[in-house]
């Protein structure tokens, strides 16, 4: 990995996190209820996109360098596990069991499925 590639990856990560901040704010302004839909949407969309990107790189449609910058960098900064875990634990502490399980296990299963769909699409394109 060249120093330039590393810097681009880091910058892309910064950009991804800013997108997360903005998008979460937009979603929170438009939603109500216990489940943090902003984080859910971000993690689901990011998982699908990384699956797709990985699949496209694997089938040589896209260069591997893009996986570092857009995948590890942008999507890694865009999605976040720590926030999802915090929000899940917070829901469980509030005894919102269904919401907690949905936000924790439900989102994990859905995100894995979304990534799997992305991987498959990237491979067949």
């Amino acid at each position, binding site marked *: 990995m060249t120093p330039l590639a*590393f810097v681009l*990856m*880091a*910058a*892309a*990560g*910064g*950009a*991804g*996190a*800013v997108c*997360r*901040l903005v998008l*979460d*704010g937009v979603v*929170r302004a438009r939603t109500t209820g216990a489940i943090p839909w*902003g*984080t859910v949407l*971000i*993690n689901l969309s*990011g*998982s699908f*996109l*990384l*699956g797709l990107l*990985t699949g496209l790189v694997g089938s040589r449609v896209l260069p591997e360098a893009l996986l570092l910058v857009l*995948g*590890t*960098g942008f*999507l*890694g*900064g*865009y*999605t*976040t*596990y*720590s*926030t*999802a*875990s*915090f*929000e*899940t*634990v*917070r829901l*469980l*502490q*509030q*005894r919102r069991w269904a919401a907690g399980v949905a936000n*924790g*296990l439900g989102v*994990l299963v859905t*995100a*894995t*499925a979304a*990534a*799997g769909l*992305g*991987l*498959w699409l990237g491979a067949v394109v």
Partner: protein
Amino acid sequence: MALVFLGAALGVSAREALVLAFPAGHGVPWAVLGINVTGSFALGLLLDALARGGPDRGRRRAARLSLGTGLIGGYTTYSALATDAAGLIGAGSPGPGLAYALATLLAGGVATWLGMAAATLVRRPGAGPAEGAGPRRGRPRRSLRAQITGRTRRSPSGRTRARSPARCRTRAH
């Protein structure tokens, strides 16, 4: 925004450095697992410690954005978790794939909870609410157990309506 950008750039860099230093073993991305678990602990500690310190303004807000949303948010990753798990399952290793995903969920959750509990050690028990006028004097201190579980009084039916330490809505981190 700049706080988030710089923090995340550092967090992403740290993650990649660790992933390079500790490659996947038998297809399981141990580095990412460790990153997500340690990051969950750190965020639990950070957010609860900040919330106990006072309202989400000024330096506290800057710390939340740069360290929470930025550094820890960029450090941990959901997309890699999901993609690696899906890849393992799709490549004919459903056992390791599922185990990896569930281990992250459980260990990450415990780590978050431990981070929140650790925040009660950093902060004076009974220190101020997330929003409002700061530390309340003259209020009975909540027990450590109450702070961890978020439960204070019991209702007549024996169930409590749990109150989380921070009353403010959680934010993107």
